[in-house]
């Protein structure tokens, strides 16, 4: 069966890439499948593998018709290989190969480069499932639990997507890398995941929301740039993944917003106007807004590290080679070759944070990060609008890009959230005012009590405005059969 917009369920692995006629790849995927299921059972959501979860499954890649909702036991979710439809006459749209026909096969000279990009992207997908595997037990509602699992199964599917590319296009090395993706473990001392942020714990639901807002948004930016790739199968895969990624960010943005909403409503009801009266606010069983700001500071800074060095040879090579573009590449008005352009980069120049013009090619990471920060700010603004409506005088603000960094220009300096360079001693004194302290963590943990009754929500989070698939807030999104 040739490539179609409809998903072929005749093989064990749903797909729209004609797997039936590609016995080599079908066989490789079938061999990989048991390892994946084993991974899912041991590293996927803990305690809910036999529960029926109201999940959406893709039946078609048509933008309007791909989401179909039904109860599914997660291990039986139809993970599959889904690519966005091929665009006739698509070209390489940037770099040295600009104007050539997009590649349907991997060009030999970029094989290592592409494989590395796909492996790094692929590694983040199972990592977040591992990070989030214990959260089900403290879900503040069935609605939120269902959203968590939806995110998890889709991260699982994104892993499939990357594994398909590895097995289809990268030969034996690709198969080995596909195997390794199941062997690494988030936070494991011996086999850690490849990127730092994916080895951090997700200890509570607020962390989960912040993670889906900030870190999955990095994922979105990376997918957006890979969707521009001159390697057409990668582009098509990423384009389809982006449709799912949007839901993850929705979960994050509304999760944080609903948490703040519950806080503001509780404060109003108790007659507390000062958002910094933390003890009084916490007694209401909600998370005070300054602590939420600290969480945002943490997750934003960790996510910035995922963009790599501001000035990067690798990023320049990826761009020039046509394998990884910029955010919304084709809508940018320039020559898309960039060999004679510059781009302003924030750098540390003799102890001062300054903007320095760098060759645009080497500043690709910086540009993507700028686009990311702008995208984050839009979401933060929506949070602030929601708070404003409640009448509480508080605004969330993203910290300076130099704050709490471990990679890039600012890794060796301490900076405050407003971008002042500090001494080690000043930083140590202020750290707990800017980043979650142990006590903050303990407090949030104390609120993390399961709330699994239909239609009920934990005190610290407000119900959603609308439910999933036009169902109400009291719909039984997860039928729990603990096993």
């Amino acid at each position, binding site marked *: 069966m040739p490539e179609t917009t409809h998903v072929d369920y005749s093989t064990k692995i749903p797909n729209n890439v004609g797997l039936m006629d590609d016995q080599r790849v079908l066989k490789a995927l079938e061999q990989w499948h048991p390892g994946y299921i084993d991974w899912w059972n041991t590293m996927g959501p803990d305690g809910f593998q036999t529960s029926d979860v109201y999940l959406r499954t893709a039946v078609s890649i048509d933008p309007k018709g791909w989401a179909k909702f039904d109860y599914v036991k997660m291990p039986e979710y139809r993970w599959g290989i889904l690519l966005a439809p091929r665009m006739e006459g698509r070209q390489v749209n940037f770099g040295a190969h600009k104007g050539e026909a997009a590649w349907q096969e991997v060009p030999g000279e970029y094989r290592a480069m592409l494989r*590395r990009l796909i492996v790094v992207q692929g590694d983040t997908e199972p990592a977040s499932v591992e990070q989030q595997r214990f959260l089900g037990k403290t879900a503040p509602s069935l609605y939120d639990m269902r959203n968590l699992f939806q995110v998890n199964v889709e991260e699982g599917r994104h892993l499939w997507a990357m594994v398909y590319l590895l097995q289809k296009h990268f030969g034996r090395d690709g198969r080995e890398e596909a195997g390794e993706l199941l062997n*690494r473990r988030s936070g494991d*001392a011996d*086999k*850690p995941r490849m990127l730092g942020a994916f080895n951090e714990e997700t200890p509570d639901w607020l962390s989960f929301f912040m993670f889906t807002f900030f870190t999955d948004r990095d994922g979105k930016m990376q997918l957006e740039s890979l969707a521009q790739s001159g390697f057409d199968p990668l582009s098509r895969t990423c384009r389809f993944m982006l449709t799912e990624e949007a839901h993850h960010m929705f979960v994050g943005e509304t999760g944080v917003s609903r948490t703040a909403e519950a806080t503001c409503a509780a404060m109003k009801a108790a007659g507390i106007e000062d958002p910094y009266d933390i003890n009084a606010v916490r007694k209401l069983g909600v998370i005070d807004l300054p602590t939420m700001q600290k969480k945002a500071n943490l997750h934003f800074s960790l996510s910035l590290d995922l963009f790599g060095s501001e000035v990067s*040879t690798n990023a320049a*090579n990826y761009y*020039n080679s046509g394998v990884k573009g910029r955010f919304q590449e084709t809508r940018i008005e320039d020559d898309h070759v960039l060999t004679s352009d510059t781009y302003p980069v924030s750098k540390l120049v003799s102890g001062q944070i300054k903007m320095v013009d760098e060759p645009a090619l080497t500043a690709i990471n910086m540009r993507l990060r700028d686009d990311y920060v702008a995208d984050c700010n839009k979401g933060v603004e929506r949070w602030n609008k929601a708070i404003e409506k409640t009448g509480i005088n508080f605004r969330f603000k993203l910290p300076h890009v130099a704050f709490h960094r471990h990679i890039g220009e600012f890794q060796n300096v301490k900076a405050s959230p407003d971008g002042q360079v500090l001494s080690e001693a000043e930083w140590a004194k202020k750290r707990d005012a800017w980043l979650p302290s142990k006590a903050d963590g303990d407090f949030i943990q104390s609120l993390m009590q399961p709330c699994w009754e239909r239609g009920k929500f934990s005190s610290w989070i407000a119900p959603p405005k609308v439910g999933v698939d036009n169902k109400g807030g009291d719909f039984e999104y997860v039928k729990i059969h603990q096993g």
Partner: protein
Amino acid sequence: MAKRIDFQTEPSRYRHWKLKFDGDVAELIMDVDETAGLFDGYQLKLNSYDLGVDIELNDAVQRLRFEHPEVKTVVLKSGKDRVFCAGANIRMLAGSTHAHKVNFCKFTNETRNSMEDASANSGQKYMCAVRGSAAGGGYELALATDHILLADDGNSSVSLPELPLLAVLPGTGGLTRVTDKRKVRRDLADAFCTVEEGVRGTRAVKWRLVDQSVPNSKFEQAVKDTAKKLASTSDRPADAKGIAFTPIERNIEDDAVTYSGVKIEIDRATRRATLTITGPSEPPPASVADMHKQGAQFWPLRLARELDDAILHMRLNEAEVGVWIFKTQGEAAQVLAYDKFLEANKDNWLAREILHFWKRTLKRIDVTSRSLVALVEPGSCFAGTLAEIVFACDRSFMLVGSFQGDNRPAAAITLSNLNFGAYPMSNDLSRLATRFLGEPESVEAAKAQTGKPLDAETCEEMGLVTSAFDHIDWDDEVRIFLEERSSYSADGLTGMEQNLRFAGPETMETKIFGRLTAWQNWIFQRPNAAGAEGALKRYGSGVKANFNPERV
């Protein structure tokens, strides 16, 4: 590159390395300060190195041998979290003159050879603990150790990405050590050298690229165990006390550098330097204990350090001085007395170190790209160890009798036992055995004359010098030789001299130097690497190199 490069340093001045001592194990930790490059225009990111980093490494390796007889294993590791060492800094290479690149690589090789020398000859074993990526020169550094441990964490890797990334070679011993030291199969080596991201974990062991691949949680323990195991094979004394490498005495002027026992005088008009070595003024100490007491002032050691510094200074800072004239002055009998002392005490760790230090310093002379000539004149002391310098030279001239009005004793060369194996060249033969490759009987004849002062005519007859001239011919003959030398192409001379100096068998060391010269230094000049559109020039810009496909 007008700045004078100084090879003298000491641990309190290190910017890039740290030394930690724990009984018989020392840690040599590479933690490069990216803002402290030797020149402007590049940052030493990701533990990449330049000559300045290597000068400190060389100093550390030397001090470990002399100041720390108790250290039996040296563990080479990185002070950075996710990277072991990214190799030679590319922007530094791209911005360097060809001559600087060549001399930098040569010095790098010499330092790595000296690590292997410590392992092989003085019981100080080197091992390498690789966490993060060891790329290019970083892996070459690891290759110079006896044992490589690689963390099996899914990220740590070893690689030689020079060809795919830069269109040059891992030329400081990388290819040769992969095939000849680690004996990696050639097709696997070929694959390895074209995989930019390198090889990790068990495959790296299987391909013989590393010795062990160890999970992170067991890594520290495995490093400790290996260090102890290596230490147990060492014959270094447990209770000896090291000697302090006190700063050498040196006075630098525009056209002269004066040490206590070496004087360099430069004649810029003729582009010649005269290096005059002064023999010992005191007889050797009465006992080994007294030698230890003298420490860095013990004449053979003091002179070796000074000569070593002089050679490095001249190589890097005086590239246009193309001819070096070696002279000596002093009492040959005293020089021979020191030779006898060292030979008699060669089982003492310090005496052994000094002999190996002389061996390495003489090897530095062998691979120096200058025309070398020895003038053996009245009052000179080319005896034993110092006679090796005559044999290291491309030509040697000896005066018959005396100059008019000069009452110093006539020139003589006296051989000692040390001329017959104590100071092998990189081909693993003594200079005399190399000199007489086709006539081993001449080596035997020379040996029979050990200890006897040999006059000019005898030396010429025995082939120990090129020519013997009397005072009537001397000035003209020497002048004509020197003028003729100056008239030739500097490149042609370097090539010819290096070809002629190393007769006899190939060793790993001769291959490393030879291939650096033949291949890397050729590639370094070619447009595919060094041209405006070459890989070295375009590295980091994101723009691909433009290659000329013609095979030469």
